[in-house]
């Protein structure tokens, strides 16, 4: 049975697309057949992050409207086995996505894939709603920052009430927190909400902490999911996150300030 996982957040620019690309690629690297779907109609960018923008012929909307088959629209990743991308369309027609059509495409993909990763657009409008509607699980990407945490909490409320599982009184969507763009040094200085703060407020399981990392920009410059940059902290944090998701007990790294010496610890320097 395929698992449908939505990567959501409410707020824009927190790292949903970065996470979708890294997480999906990570699952595929572990041998799981995975498809990434971009729900950000009109502002697609998953194809850019995955570096397949020039290979998009047909998109999600084309499939929904019957202008192409799923097979025609799926883009097979050139680096990683078992990994496919379904691009969003650049059309400006907001009504191009509809619940019935999305359901049909997901059902078809579910026959072929183990994991279906839905990269949600920002906001709580139609696109975001449809990205989460059919989900079995949700990854709520949050930055340690007031507006992001508030939006995440709103999204949790919507996940619990406006989704298929909620409407049909099925087992609720499994929600997990991904805390991204984390700066342990700033947390230590009391300038940034800590993992514990955010977890306490949102009270959902923590799947991973992704540090603020220059590697993310470098990776997006070259159209590679950052998880393929194995020497980077963000890449390693995403690898840990995938392992943890798959049930391996991996401790959280990159949550403490970088190895303070004995004296700086004693005298509170930073």
């Amino acid at each position, binding site marked *: 049975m395929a698992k449908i996982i939505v990567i959501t957040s409410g707020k824009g620019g927190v790292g949903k697309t970065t996470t979708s690309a890294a997480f999906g690629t990570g699952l595929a690297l572990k041998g799981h057949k995975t498809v990434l779907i971009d729900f950000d109609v009109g502002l697609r960018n998953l194809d850019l992050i995955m570096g397949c923008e020039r290979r998009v012929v047909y998109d999600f909307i084309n499939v929904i409207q019957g202008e192409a088959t799923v097979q025609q629209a799926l883009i097979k990743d050139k680096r990683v086995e078992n990994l496919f991308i379904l691009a969003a369309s650049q059309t400006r027609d907001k009504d191009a996505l509809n619940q019935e059509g999305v359901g049909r495409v997901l059902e078809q993909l579910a026959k072929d894939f183990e994991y279906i990763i839905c990269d949600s657009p920002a906001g709580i409008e139609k696109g975001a709603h449809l990205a989460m509607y059919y989900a079995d699980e949700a990854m709520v990407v949050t930055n340690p*920052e*007031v507006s992001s*945490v*508030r939006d995440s*909490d*709103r999204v949790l*409320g919507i996940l*619990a*009430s406006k989704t298929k599982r909620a409407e049909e009184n099925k087992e609720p969507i499994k929600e997990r927190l991904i805390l991204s763009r984390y700066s342990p040094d700033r*947390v*230590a*200085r*009391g*300038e*940034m*909400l*800590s993992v514990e*703060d955010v977890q*306490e*407020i*949102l009270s959902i399981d923590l799947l991973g902490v992704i540090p603020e990392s220059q590697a993310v920009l470098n990776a997006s410059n070259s159209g590679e999911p950052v998880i393929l940059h194995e020497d980077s902290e963000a890449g390693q944090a995403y690898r840990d996150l995938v392992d943890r998701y798959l049930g391996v007990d991996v401790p959280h790294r990159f949550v403490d300030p970088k190895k303070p010496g004995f004296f*700086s*610890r*004693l*005298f*509170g*320097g930073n």
Partner: protein
Amino acid sequence: MGLFDYFRKPEKSSANLAKERLQVIVAHQRRDNADGPDYLPQLQRELLYVIRKYVEVDDDAVNVQLEKDGNVEVLELNVTLPDRKPEALDAD
């Protein structure tokens, strides 16, 4: 936390401030989200608006809840008035 931190003024860090604000925001949001019908938050805001024409009350002075008891639904409305008796009540 270093040794010297313990001697610093126990001044609130900005992260602490963020956390306290969030606790309030989230509590409100969850109350708004609670199972009730979609119109409840708006009803609550409008009631607050009307009440404020007459009495100065806090942002969270109005609480609206829908209670279900078998087949009966009861709309429960709670308004917390400020301690001192406001003059505005006597007017009109």
